[in-house]
Protein backbone atom coordinates (compact mmCIF):
# COMPACT_ATOMS: atom_id res chain seq x y z
CA UNK A 1 0.00 0.00 0.00
CA UNK A 2 1.23 3.45 -0.83
CA UNK A 3 1.98 5.63 2.15
CA UNK A 4 -0.76 8.06 3.09
CA UNK A 5 1.72 10.79 3.77
CA UNK A 6 1.90 13.38 1.01
CA UNK A 7 4.72 15.88 0.73
CA UNK A 8 4.97 18.07 -2.35
CA UNK A 9 8.49 19.20 -3.18
CA UNK A 10 8.13 20.01 -6.86
CA UNK A 11 7.20 23.69 -6.78
CA UNK A 12 9.36 24.48 -9.82
CA UNK A 13 7.06 22.24 -11.85
CA UNK A 14 3.93 23.98 -10.64
CA UNK A 15 2.25 25.23 -7.47
CA UNK A 16 -1.19 24.82 -5.96
CA UNK A 17 -3.42 27.78 -6.71
CA UNK A 18 -3.69 29.89 -3.55
CA UNK A 19 -7.28 29.79 -2.17
CA UNK A 20 -7.36 33.59 -2.07
CA UNK A 21 -6.36 33.66 -5.75
CA UNK A 22 -8.99 31.09 -6.63
CA UNK A 23 -11.69 33.05 -4.79
CA UNK A 24 -10.76 36.21 -6.65
CA UNK A 25 -11.07 34.32 -9.95
CA UNK A 26 -14.40 32.59 -9.35
CA UNK A 27 -16.81 35.48 -10.04
CA UNK A 28 -15.22 35.98 -13.46
CA UNK A 29 -16.46 32.65 -14.79
CA UNK A 30 -20.26 32.61 -14.50
CA UNK A 31 -21.31 35.91 -12.98
CA UNK A 32 -19.02 38.50 -14.51
CA UNK A 33 -18.39 36.83 -17.81
CA UNK A 34 -18.52 39.83 -20.13
CA UNK A 35 -16.15 40.01 -23.07
CA UNK A 36 -13.79 42.92 -22.30
CA UNK A 37 -14.02 44.06 -25.92
CA UNK A 38 -17.79 44.69 -25.71
CA UNK A 39 -19.42 47.99 -24.77
CA UNK A 40 -21.97 47.33 -22.00
CA UNK A 41 -21.46 47.44 -18.24
CA UNK A 42 -20.82 43.69 -17.87
CA UNK A 43 -17.99 44.01 -20.36
CA UNK A 44 -16.57 47.17 -18.83
CA UNK A 45 -16.23 45.32 -15.53
CA UNK A 46 -14.09 42.70 -17.23
CA UNK A 47 -12.02 45.38 -18.88
CA UNK A 48 -11.44 47.06 -15.56
CA UNK A 49 -10.47 43.76 -13.92
CA UNK A 50 -7.81 43.27 -16.59
CA UNK A 51 -6.49 46.78 -16.13
CA UNK A 52 -6.25 46.24 -12.37
CA UNK A 53 -4.32 43.03 -12.89
CA UNK A 54 -2.04 44.74 -15.39
CA UNK A 55 -1.20 47.39 -12.84
CA UNK A 56 -0.36 44.71 -10.26
CA UNK A 57 1.97 42.88 -12.64
CA UNK A 58 3.64 46.16 -13.65
CA UNK A 59 4.20 47.12 -10.03
CA UNK A 60 5.67 43.73 -9.20
CA UNK A 61 8.54 44.14 -11.66
CA UNK A 62 8.95 47.92 -11.73
CA UNK A 63 7.35 48.39 -15.14
CA UNK A 64 4.59 50.64 -16.45
CA UNK A 65 1.17 49.05 -17.02
CA UNK A 66 1.27 49.77 -20.76
CA UNK A 67 4.40 47.59 -20.95
CA UNK A 68 2.57 44.44 -19.74
CA UNK A 69 0.89 42.05 -22.20
CA UNK A 70 -1.05 39.01 -21.06
CA UNK A 71 -0.35 35.67 -22.72
CA UNK A 72 -1.19 32.00 -22.22
CA UNK A 73 1.93 31.44 -20.14
CA UNK A 74 5.70 31.29 -20.06
CA UNK A 75 6.11 29.33 -23.26
CA UNK A 76 4.05 31.74 -25.34
CA UNK A 77 5.85 34.72 -23.80
CA UNK A 78 9.23 33.20 -24.68
CA UNK A 79 8.13 32.38 -28.23
CA UNK A 80 6.72 35.84 -28.75
CA UNK A 81 9.75 37.64 -27.33
CA UNK A 82 12.20 35.73 -29.51
CA UNK A 83 10.24 35.35 -32.72
CA UNK A 84 8.59 38.78 -32.53
CA UNK A 85 11.83 40.71 -32.05
CA UNK A 86 13.81 38.56 -34.50
CA UNK A 87 11.26 39.24 -37.23
CA UNK A 88 10.93 42.87 -36.21
CA UNK A 89 14.68 43.54 -36.27
CA UNK A 90 15.95 41.23 -38.99
CA UNK A 91 16.83 44.14 -41.24
CA UNK A 92 19.26 45.29 -38.57
CA UNK A 93 20.88 41.91 -38.07
CA UNK A 94 20.18 38.21 -37.66
CA UNK A 95 22.37 37.22 -34.72
CA UNK A 96 20.90 36.04 -31.41
CA UNK A 97 22.79 35.11 -28.25
CA UNK A 98 21.44 32.72 -25.63
CA UNK A 99 22.81 30.26 -23.06
CA UNK A 100 23.18 26.50 -22.97
CA UNK A 101 20.94 26.06 -19.92
CA UNK A 102 17.76 27.71 -21.17
CA UNK A 103 14.34 26.12 -20.88
CA UNK A 104 13.14 24.27 -23.98
CA UNK A 105 10.74 27.15 -24.68
CA UNK A 106 13.83 29.24 -25.50
CA UNK A 107 16.08 26.49 -26.88
CA UNK A 108 13.59 25.06 -29.32
CA UNK A 109 12.45 28.52 -30.42
CA UNK A 110 16.09 29.33 -31.19
CA UNK A 111 16.34 26.06 -33.16
CA UNK A 112 13.33 27.20 -35.16
CA UNK A 113 14.83 30.65 -35.81
CA UNK A 114 18.07 28.99 -36.88
CA UNK A 115 16.15 27.04 -39.51
CA UNK A 116 14.76 30.35 -40.76
CA UNK A 117 18.26 31.72 -41.29
CA UNK A 118 19.09 33.41 -38.00
CA UNK A 119 22.46 32.65 -36.45
CA UNK A 120 22.44 31.60 -32.81
CA UNK A 121 25.36 31.76 -30.39
CA UNK A 122 24.93 29.58 -27.32
CA UNK A 123 27.00 30.75 -24.35
CA UNK A 124 28.54 28.17 -22.02
CA UNK A 125 28.16 28.37 -18.24
CA UNK A 126 30.60 27.81 -15.40
CA UNK A 127 30.41 24.76 -13.13
CA UNK A 128 27.76 26.44 -10.98
CA UNK A 129 25.61 27.18 -14.03
CA UNK A 130 26.35 30.92 -14.36
CA UNK A 131 26.92 32.72 -17.62
CA UNK A 132 30.19 34.69 -17.56
CA UNK A 133 29.46 38.31 -18.58
CA UNK A 134 32.86 38.49 -20.32
CA UNK A 135 31.83 35.59 -22.55
CA UNK A 136 28.78 37.57 -23.58
CA UNK A 137 30.87 40.66 -24.38
CA UNK A 138 33.18 38.62 -26.56
CA UNK A 139 30.48 37.17 -28.81
CA UNK A 140 28.47 40.33 -29.49
CA UNK A 141 28.80 41.48 -33.09
CA UNK A 142 27.34 44.32 -35.16
CA UNK A 143 24.76 41.79 -36.34
CA UNK A 144 23.54 40.95 -32.80
CA UNK A 145 19.94 41.97 -32.25
CA UNK A 146 18.90 40.02 -29.18
CA UNK A 147 20.26 38.37 -26.06
CA UNK A 148 18.04 35.95 -24.13
CA UNK A 149 19.34 34.63 -20.81
CA UNK A 150 17.07 33.11 -18.17
CA UNK A 151 16.83 34.83 -14.77
CA UNK A 152 17.07 31.63 -12.74
CA UNK A 153 17.37 28.04 -13.87
CA UNK A 154 14.47 25.64 -13.40
CA UNK A 155 16.62 22.58 -12.70
CA UNK A 156 19.58 23.70 -10.61
CA UNK A 157 18.11 27.02 -9.38
CA UNK A 158 21.19 29.05 -10.30
CA UNK A 159 20.50 32.79 -10.51
CA UNK A 160 22.24 34.62 -13.35
CA UNK A 161 24.12 37.95 -13.04
CA UNK A 162 21.15 39.61 -14.73
CA UNK A 163 22.01 43.21 -13.90
CA UNK A 164 25.49 42.87 -15.40
CA UNK A 165 24.11 41.18 -18.49
CA UNK A 166 21.43 43.86 -18.81
CA UNK A 167 24.01 46.63 -18.64
CA UNK A 168 26.25 45.03 -21.28
CA UNK A 169 23.28 44.77 -23.66
CA UNK A 170 21.98 48.27 -22.96
CA UNK A 171 25.45 49.80 -23.50
CA UNK A 172 25.67 48.06 -26.87
CA UNK A 173 22.08 48.89 -27.84
CA UNK A 174 21.05 45.22 -28.01
CA UNK A 175 17.70 43.95 -26.77
CA UNK A 176 17.82 41.84 -23.62
CA UNK A 177 15.09 39.29 -22.87
CA UNK A 178 14.96 37.18 -19.73
CA UNK A 179 12.82 34.15 -18.99
CA UNK A 180 11.97 34.90 -15.36
CA UNK A 181 9.38 32.14 -14.99
CA UNK A 182 11.24 30.55 -12.06
CA UNK A 183 12.44 33.79 -10.49
CA UNK A 184 9.22 35.79 -10.03
CA UNK A 185 8.11 35.73 -6.43
CA UNK A 186 11.43 34.23 -5.34
CA UNK A 187 13.92 36.95 -6.23
CA UNK A 188 13.33 40.74 -6.30
CA UNK A 189 13.14 42.00 -9.87
CA UNK A 190 13.21 45.56 -11.18
CA UNK A 191 13.24 45.73 -14.96
CA UNK A 192 14.38 49.36 -15.08
CA UNK A 193 17.21 48.92 -12.60
CA UNK A 194 18.32 45.69 -14.30
CA UNK A 195 18.10 47.06 -17.88
CA UNK A 196 15.68 44.30 -18.92
CA UNK A 197 13.87 44.94 -22.21
CA UNK A 198 11.57 41.91 -22.19
CA UNK A 199 10.62 39.50 -19.44
CA UNK A 200 8.50 36.33 -19.47
CA UNK A 201 6.46 35.19 -16.49
CA UNK A 202 3.89 32.51 -15.74
CA UNK A 203 1.22 32.56 -13.01
CA UNK A 204 1.22 28.89 -11.99
CA UNK A 205 4.79 29.08 -10.72
CA UNK A 206 3.78 31.47 -7.94
CA UNK A 207 0.48 30.04 -6.69
CA UNK A 208 -1.59 31.41 -9.55
CA UNK A 209 -3.55 29.43 -12.14
CA UNK A 210 -2.14 27.53 -15.12
CA UNK A 211 -2.63 28.82 -18.64
CA UNK A 212 -1.90 32.49 -18.04
CA UNK A 213 1.26 34.56 -18.07
CA UNK A 214 2.63 37.83 -19.32
CA UNK A 215 5.35 39.37 -21.39
CA UNK A 216 6.84 42.68 -20.32
CA UNK A 217 7.91 44.67 -23.36
CA UNK A 218 9.75 47.89 -22.66
CA UNK A 219 8.10 50.87 -24.29
CA UNK A 220 9.45 51.67 -27.74
CA UNK A 221 10.70 48.20 -28.59
CA UNK A 222 10.06 46.96 -32.06
CA UNK A 223 8.37 43.58 -31.90
CA UNK A 224 6.13 41.81 -34.38
CA UNK A 225 2.89 40.21 -33.27
CA UNK A 226 2.96 36.50 -32.66
CA UNK A 227 -0.73 35.66 -32.18
CA UNK A 228 -2.75 37.31 -34.94
CA UNK A 229 -6.44 38.17 -34.81
CA UNK A 230 -8.53 40.73 -32.96
CA UNK A 231 -7.38 43.95 -31.42
CA UNK A 232 -6.91 42.82 -27.82
CA UNK A 233 -3.93 43.87 -25.71
CA UNK A 234 -3.65 47.12 -27.60
CA UNK A 235 -3.47 45.23 -30.90
CA UNK A 236 -0.37 43.32 -29.86
CA UNK A 237 -1.77 39.99 -28.72
CA UNK A 238 -5.00 38.78 -30.24
CA UNK A 239 -7.60 36.53 -28.65
CA UNK A 240 -10.35 37.09 -26.09
CA UNK A 241 -8.65 37.66 -22.76
CA UNK A 242 -8.57 34.88 -20.17
CA UNK A 243 -10.26 37.17 -17.65
CA UNK A 244 -10.40 34.76 -14.66
CA UNK A 245 -6.80 33.74 -15.30
CA UNK A 246 -5.60 37.31 -15.62
CA UNK A 247 -7.41 38.28 -12.40
CA UNK A 248 -5.75 35.29 -10.71
CA UNK A 249 -2.35 36.27 -12.05
CA UNK A 250 -2.78 39.78 -10.66
CA UNK A 251 -3.73 38.61 -7.16
CA UNK A 252 -1.01 35.93 -7.15
CA UNK A 253 1.80 38.26 -8.18
CA UNK A 254 0.75 40.92 -5.71
CA UNK A 255 0.79 38.35 -2.90
CA UNK A 256 4.08 36.88 -4.07
CA UNK A 257 5.84 40.24 -4.03
CA UNK A 258 4.34 41.27 -0.72
CA UNK A 259 5.53 38.10 0.99
CA UNK A 260 8.75 37.70 -0.98
CA UNK A 261 11.42 38.47 1.61
CA UNK A 262 9.65 36.65 4.44
CA UNK A 263 8.81 33.56 2.37
CA UNK A 264 12.17 33.25 0.69
CA UNK A 265 13.96 33.54 4.04
CA UNK A 266 11.74 30.87 5.59
CA UNK A 267 11.91 28.50 2.64
CA UNK A 268 15.65 28.86 2.09
CA UNK A 269 16.27 28.12 5.76
CA UNK A 270 14.26 24.87 5.55
CA UNK A 271 15.98 24.08 2.25
CA UNK A 272 19.45 24.61 3.77
CA UNK A 273 18.71 22.24 6.65
CA UNK A 274 17.51 19.50 4.32
CA UNK A 275 20.36 20.05 1.86
CA UNK A 276 23.04 20.01 4.57
CA UNK A 277 21.59 16.83 5.98
CA UNK A 278 21.60 15.09 2.59
CA UNK A 279 25.14 16.18 1.75
CA UNK A 280 26.59 15.28 5.12
CA UNK A 281 24.75 12.01 5.82
CA UNK A 282 24.58 10.34 2.40
CA UNK A 283 28.04 9.56 1.02
CA UNK A 284 28.99 10.05 -2.64
CA UNK A 285 26.51 12.87 -3.10
CA UNK A 286 27.14 16.22 -4.77
CA UNK A 287 25.30 19.50 -4.99
CA UNK A 288 24.49 20.71 -8.50
CA UNK A 289 24.37 24.45 -9.05
CA UNK A 290 25.56 27.42 -7.03
CA UNK A 291 25.61 27.21 -3.24
CA UNK A 292 24.28 30.72 -2.60
CA UNK A 293 23.21 32.30 -5.92
CA UNK A 294 20.31 29.92 -5.96
CA UNK A 295 16.51 29.99 -5.86
CA UNK A 296 15.39 29.77 -2.21
CA UNK A 297 13.51 26.48 -2.53
CA UNK A 298 15.84 24.62 -4.88
CA UNK A 299 17.84 21.50 -4.05
CA UNK A 300 19.53 19.60 -6.87
CA UNK A 301 21.85 16.79 -5.86
CA UNK A 302 23.37 13.78 -7.59
CA UNK A 303 23.71 10.44 -5.87
CA UNK A 304 26.45 8.39 -7.48
CA UNK A 305 25.78 4.83 -8.67
CA UNK A 306 22.00 5.14 -8.91
CA UNK A 307 19.48 6.29 -11.50
CA UNK A 308 17.00 9.08 -10.85
CA UNK A 309 13.75 7.60 -12.13
CA UNK A 310 14.01 4.63 -9.77
CA UNK A 311 14.66 7.06 -6.97
CA UNK A 312 11.54 9.08 -7.88
CA UNK A 313 9.44 5.91 -7.94
CA UNK A 314 10.56 4.97 -4.43
CA UNK A 315 9.98 8.50 -3.17
CA UNK A 316 6.58 8.61 -4.83
CA UNK A 317 5.75 5.36 -3.05
CA UNK A 318 6.63 7.14 0.20
CA UNK A 319 4.29 10.03 -0.75
CA UNK A 320 7.01 12.47 -1.80
CA UNK A 321 6.67 14.35 -5.11
CA UNK A 322 10.04 15.27 -6.61
CA UNK A 323 11.80 15.48 -9.96
CA UNK A 324 15.00 14.31 -11.69
CA UNK A 325 17.30 15.20 -14.57
CA UNK A 326 17.61 11.59 -15.58
CA UNK A 327 16.70 10.80 -19.16
CA UNK A 328 14.63 7.84 -18.13
CA UNK A 329 11.96 10.01 -16.59
CA UNK A 330 11.53 12.52 -19.36
CA UNK A 331 10.56 10.50 -22.40
CA UNK A 332 13.89 11.26 -24.05
CA UNK A 333 16.98 9.16 -23.54
CA UNK A 334 19.47 11.94 -22.99
CA UNK A 335 20.02 13.22 -19.47
CA UNK A 336 19.32 16.87 -18.65
CA UNK A 337 21.17 19.35 -20.88
CA UNK A 338 21.61 21.61 -17.87
CA UNK A 339 23.41 18.99 -15.78
CA UNK A 340 25.64 18.08 -18.73
CA UNK A 341 26.35 21.79 -19.32
CA UNK A 342 27.72 22.25 -15.79
CA UNK A 343 30.12 19.39 -16.45
CA UNK A 344 28.44 16.37 -14.89
CA UNK A 345 29.33 13.03 -16.45
CA UNK A 346 26.17 11.48 -17.94
CA UNK A 347 25.98 8.72 -15.33
CA UNK A 348 26.04 11.29 -12.51
CA UNK A 349 23.42 13.39 -14.30
CA UNK A 350 21.24 10.26 -14.40
CA UNK A 351 21.43 10.09 -10.60
CA UNK A 352 20.10 13.56 -9.94
CA UNK A 353 17.24 14.53 -7.68
CA UNK A 354 15.50 17.91 -7.69
CA UNK A 355 13.47 18.98 -4.69
CA UNK A 356 11.84 22.40 -4.96
CA UNK A 357 10.34 23.62 -1.72
CA UNK A 358 7.49 26.07 -1.36
CA UNK A 359 4.82 27.48 0.90
CA UNK A 360 3.42 24.18 2.20
CA UNK A 361 6.76 22.76 3.29
CA UNK A 362 7.87 22.84 6.91
CA UNK A 363 10.88 21.84 9.01
CA UNK A 364 8.83 18.84 10.13
CA UNK A 365 8.74 17.56 6.53
CA UNK A 366 12.54 17.50 6.43
CA UNK A 367 13.07 14.61 8.80
CA UNK A 368 10.68 12.34 6.92
CA UNK A 369 11.92 13.38 3.48
CA UNK A 370 15.55 12.94 4.48
CA UNK A 371 14.94 9.47 5.93
CA UNK A 372 13.04 8.32 2.86
CA UNK A 373 15.73 9.64 0.50
CA UNK A 374 18.47 7.92 2.47
CA UNK A 375 16.52 4.67 2.54
CA UNK A 376 15.80 4.81 -1.20
CA UNK A 377 19.40 5.65 -2.13
CA UNK A 378 20.71 2.78 -0.01
CA UNK A 379 18.22 0.39 -1.49
CA UNK A 380 19.12 1.31 -5.07
CA UNK A 381 22.83 1.25 -4.35
CA UNK A 382 22.44 -2.26 -2.92
CA UNK A 383 21.26 -3.44 -6.34
CA UNK A 384 23.64 -1.30 -8.41
CA UNK A 385 26.54 -3.01 -10.21
CA UNK A 386 28.36 0.35 -10.19
CA UNK A 387 28.15 0.55 -6.41
CA UNK A 388 29.20 -3.08 -6.09
CA UNK A 389 32.33 -2.36 -8.18
CA UNK A 390 33.02 0.78 -6.18
CA UNK A 391 32.81 -1.14 -2.88
CA UNK A 392 35.15 -3.83 -4.16
CA UNK A 393 37.70 -1.23 -5.24
CA UNK A 394 37.64 0.29 -1.78
CA UNK A 395 38.50 -3.03 -0.08
Amino acid at each position, binding site marked *: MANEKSIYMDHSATTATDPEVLNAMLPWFSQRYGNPSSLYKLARESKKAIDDARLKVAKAIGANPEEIFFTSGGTESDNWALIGTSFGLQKKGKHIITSCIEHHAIQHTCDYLKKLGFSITILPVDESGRVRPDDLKSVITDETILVSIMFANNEIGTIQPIKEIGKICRDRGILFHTDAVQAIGNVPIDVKDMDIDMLSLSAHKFYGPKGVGALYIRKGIRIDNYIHGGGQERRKRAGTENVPGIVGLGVAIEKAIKGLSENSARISSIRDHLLDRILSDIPNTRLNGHRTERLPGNINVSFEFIEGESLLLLLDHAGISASTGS*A*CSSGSLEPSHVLLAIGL*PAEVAHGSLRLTLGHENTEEDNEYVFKEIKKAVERLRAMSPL*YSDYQKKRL
Partner: protein
Amino acid sequence: MYSEKVMDHFMNPRNQGEITDADGVGEVGNPTCGDIMRIFITVKNNIITDVKFQTFGCGAAVASSSMATELIKGKTLEEAWEVSNKAVAEALEGLPPIKMHCSVLAEDGIHQAINDYRIKHGLEPWEEKPGHHHGHDEETCEA
Protein backbone atom coordinates in the same frame (compact mmCIF):
# COMPACT_ATOMS: atom_id res chain seq x y z
CA MET B 1 2.84 4.85 -16.59
CA TYR B 2 3.92 1.39 -15.39
CA SER B 3 1.77 -1.72 -15.08
CA GLU B 4 1.13 -3.21 -11.64
CA LYS B 5 3.41 -6.09 -12.54
CA VAL B 6 6.29 -3.73 -13.34
CA MET B 7 5.76 -1.90 -10.07
CA ASP B 8 5.62 -5.20 -8.19
CA HIS B 9 8.93 -6.35 -9.65
CA PHE B 10 10.46 -2.92 -9.08
CA MET B 11 9.32 -2.69 -5.46
CA ASN B 12 10.02 -6.39 -4.71
CA PRO B 13 12.78 -7.45 -7.07
CA ARG B 14 13.29 -11.22 -7.38
CA ASN B 15 16.79 -12.70 -7.39
CA GLN B 16 18.55 -9.42 -6.73
CA GLY B 17 22.19 -9.84 -5.72
CA GLU B 18 25.43 -11.38 -6.80
CA ILE B 19 26.73 -14.93 -7.25
CA THR B 20 30.42 -14.61 -6.41
CA ASP B 21 31.41 -17.94 -8.02
CA ALA B 22 28.98 -17.72 -10.94
CA ASP B 23 29.46 -20.05 -13.89
CA GLY B 24 28.50 -17.29 -16.30
CA VAL B 25 28.18 -13.50 -16.05
CA GLY B 26 26.57 -11.17 -18.58
CA GLU B 27 26.88 -7.40 -18.47
CA VAL B 28 25.03 -5.09 -20.85
CA GLY B 29 24.17 -1.40 -21.17
CA ASN B 30 26.38 1.51 -20.20
CA PRO B 31 26.31 4.17 -17.50
CA THR B 32 26.16 7.02 -20.00
CA CYS B 33 22.79 5.79 -21.17
CA GLY B 34 21.61 5.33 -17.61
CA ASP B 35 21.34 1.56 -17.46
CA ILE B 36 23.63 -1.37 -16.73
CA MET B 37 22.45 -4.92 -16.10
CA ARG B 38 24.62 -7.70 -14.76
CA ILE B 39 23.26 -11.25 -14.76
CA PHE B 40 24.94 -14.10 -12.86
CA ILE B 41 24.08 -17.76 -13.53
CA THR B 42 24.92 -21.05 -11.88
CA VAL B 43 24.65 -24.00 -14.28
CA LYS B 44 24.36 -27.66 -13.29
CA ASN B 45 23.81 -30.38 -15.90
CA ASN B 46 22.93 -27.76 -18.50
CA ILE B 47 20.24 -26.29 -16.26
CA ILE B 48 20.29 -22.78 -14.75
CA THR B 49 19.93 -23.68 -11.09
CA ASP B 50 20.54 -20.20 -9.72
CA VAL B 51 20.44 -16.69 -11.15
CA LYS B 52 20.96 -13.23 -9.68
CA PHE B 53 21.06 -9.71 -11.07
CA GLN B 54 22.45 -6.28 -10.31
CA THR B 55 20.96 -3.30 -12.15
CA PHE B 56 21.66 0.41 -12.37
CA GLY B 57 18.69 1.89 -14.17
CA CYS B 58 15.11 3.03 -14.23
CA GLY B 59 12.07 1.21 -12.87
CA ALA B 60 11.56 -0.67 -16.12
CA ALA B 61 15.21 -1.78 -16.18
CA VAL B 62 14.99 -3.16 -12.65
CA ALA B 63 11.65 -4.89 -13.31
CA SER B 64 12.92 -6.36 -16.62
CA SER B 65 15.99 -7.77 -14.88
CA SER B 66 13.90 -9.24 -12.11
CA MET B 67 11.40 -10.80 -14.52
CA ALA B 68 14.16 -12.14 -16.78
CA THR B 69 15.78 -13.97 -13.88
CA GLU B 70 12.44 -15.55 -12.97
CA LEU B 71 11.86 -16.66 -16.56
CA ILE B 72 15.20 -18.46 -16.92
CA LYS B 73 15.56 -20.03 -13.49
CA GLY B 74 15.31 -23.85 -13.74
CA LYS B 75 15.46 -23.75 -17.55
CA THR B 76 18.00 -25.50 -19.76
CA LEU B 77 20.48 -23.19 -21.47
CA GLU B 78 18.70 -23.81 -24.79
CA GLU B 79 15.35 -22.84 -23.30
CA ALA B 80 16.82 -19.77 -21.56
CA TRP B 81 18.41 -18.64 -24.83
CA GLU B 82 14.95 -18.59 -26.41
CA VAL B 83 13.49 -16.18 -23.81
CA SER B 84 12.96 -13.07 -25.90
CA ASN B 85 12.63 -9.43 -24.92
CA LYS B 86 8.98 -9.68 -25.95
CA ALA B 87 8.48 -12.53 -23.49
CA VAL B 88 9.98 -10.39 -20.73
CA ALA B 89 7.80 -7.40 -21.65
CA GLU B 90 4.67 -9.55 -21.92
CA ALA B 91 5.32 -11.20 -18.56
CA LEU B 92 5.50 -7.66 -17.13
CA GLU B 93 2.08 -6.90 -18.64
CA GLY B 94 3.67 -4.48 -21.08
CA LEU B 95 6.23 -1.69 -20.98
CA PRO B 96 5.84 1.91 -22.23
CA PRO B 97 7.24 2.12 -25.81
CA ILE B 98 10.22 4.22 -24.73
CA LYS B 99 11.10 1.56 -22.14
CA MET B 100 11.04 -1.44 -24.48
CA HIS B 101 14.82 -1.25 -24.76
CA CYS B 102 15.00 -2.28 -21.09
CA SER B 103 13.53 -5.68 -22.02
CA VAL B 104 16.00 -5.90 -24.91
CA LEU B 105 18.80 -5.32 -22.42
CA ALA B 106 17.46 -8.18 -20.30
CA GLU B 107 17.50 -10.55 -23.27
CA ASP B 108 21.03 -9.42 -24.17
CA GLY B 109 22.10 -9.92 -20.55
CA ILE B 110 20.84 -13.52 -20.54
CA HIS B 111 22.59 -14.24 -23.84
CA GLN B 112 25.86 -12.79 -22.60
CA ALA B 113 25.71 -14.81 -19.38
CA ILE B 114 25.04 -18.02 -21.32
CA ASN B 115 27.83 -17.34 -23.81
CA ASP B 116 30.20 -16.45 -20.98
CA TYR B 117 29.45 -19.89 -19.53
CA ARG B 118 29.94 -21.57 -22.90
CA ILE B 119 33.26 -19.83 -23.58
CA LYS B 120 34.53 -20.73 -20.10
CA HIS B 121 33.68 -24.36 -20.88
CA GLY B 122 35.45 -24.38 -24.21
CA LEU B 123 32.22 -24.25 -26.21
CA GLU B 124 31.43 -22.08 -29.19
CA PRO B 125 29.33 -19.03 -28.21
CA TRP B 126 25.85 -19.09 -29.71
CA GLU B 127 25.07 -16.50 -32.33
CA GLU B 128 22.29 -13.93 -32.07
CA LYS B 129 19.44 -14.52 -34.49
CA PRO B 130 19.48 -12.37 -37.61
CA GLY B 131 17.58 -9.13 -37.07
CA HIS B 132 18.33 -9.05 -33.35
CA HIS B 133 18.66 -5.51 -32.07
CA HIS B 134 20.95 -4.71 -29.23
CA GLY B 135 19.68 -2.73 -26.27
CA HIS B 136 21.71 0.26 -27.21
CA ASP B 137 23.34 1.85 -30.13
CA GLU B 138 26.71 2.66 -28.56
CA GLU B 139 26.75 6.20 -29.89
CA THR B 140 23.32 7.51 -29.15
CA CYS B 141 21.70 5.54 -26.34
CA GLU B 142 18.86 4.77 -28.75
CA ALA B 143 17.16 1.43 -28.48
